[in-house]
């Protein structure tokens, strides 16, 4: 981001405010990095050995937040975006970095068409009934 304010007109508004830093950080990289885009319900799980992400100076505070959030309870990409108040595109890039650095792994959702049998759907129905 240029310091003189050029090109900021559509960027530095109230809505976009908080995303400036992370986007500046992720600038120059695409969210896909040749792999499939992370689904909104893909689940991010912190690796057990990632116990001190803050010691890694390559990581931004937002990276560390993700590692910590997903340690106790794995979280979906959508939940991370809402929790950290970051656009989904930014979360995808950050998670991609963390996967590359082996701090986290990602479980991609199984498309319903590829479910091995109907038992999961039956479980969903029973679960909804029991709510």
């Amino acid at each position, binding site marked *: 981001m240029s310091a003189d304010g050029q090109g900021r007109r*559509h960027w530095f508004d109230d809505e976009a405010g908080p995303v400036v830093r992370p986007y500046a950080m992720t600038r120059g990289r695409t969210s896909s990095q040749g792999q499939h*885009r992370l689904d*909104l319900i893909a689940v991010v799980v912190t690796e057990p050995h990632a116990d001190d992400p803050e010691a890694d100076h390559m990581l931004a505070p937002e990276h560390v937040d993700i590692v910590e959030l997903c340690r106790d309870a794995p979280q979906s990409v959508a939940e991370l975006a809402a929790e950290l108040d970051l656009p989904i595109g930014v979360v995808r890039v950050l998670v991609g970095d963390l996967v590359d650095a082996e701090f986290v792994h990602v479980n991609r959702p199984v498309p319903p068409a590829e479910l091995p049998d109907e038992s999961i759907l039956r479980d969903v129905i029973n679960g*909804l009934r029991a709510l």
Partner: protein
Amino acid sequence: MIFGRSERGKPPVEPVTLKILVAGGFGVGKTTLVGAVSEIRPLRTEELLTEAGRPVDDTSGVEGKHTTTVAMDFGRITLREDLVLYLFGTPGQERFWFMWDELSEGALGAVVLADTRRLEDSFAAVDYFERRSIPFLVGVNCFEGAPRYPVEDVRQALDLDDGVPLMMCDARDRESVKEALIGVVQHAMAYAADRRQTVTT
């Protein structure tokens, strides 16, 4: 999530996740429906868009592009420790339909909400899911003061295929929303069974 790491250092459960979409025109009750069953208050996530209405995928030079954001609500229902259902309210405006493409990929199915005072607002959603062979159910949200029509008339007005379930619902009522969601999953099961038949015969 409500399931914390156990004291003994057991690894956390990695749940299977599924999603159901909630579609329909502005003010039809999508956010209300999500809120009625979600265990978390409906959350909003944002996607950054270029002016052309495409998601900002390549973050290079994003500051020079005209950007805007689109928000969508979502909710979560933990059915079991290892099974989580997410609900996503689709953004209303048609210019955000690329978001629908992303949301509907891998979706179990959808609820299309309809308001009898302006059924035409639901045409686009019905059309969308039909074209993509995504199983969906129509929930007629019964607003006070809205005229009640026989189910058959609503079906006809929406030009629904015979196989598409239609039910009256109240997006504010948890039980009613549960019924609608169960209806979607049952329909998705029947749909999958049908497709298997077509493949094997």
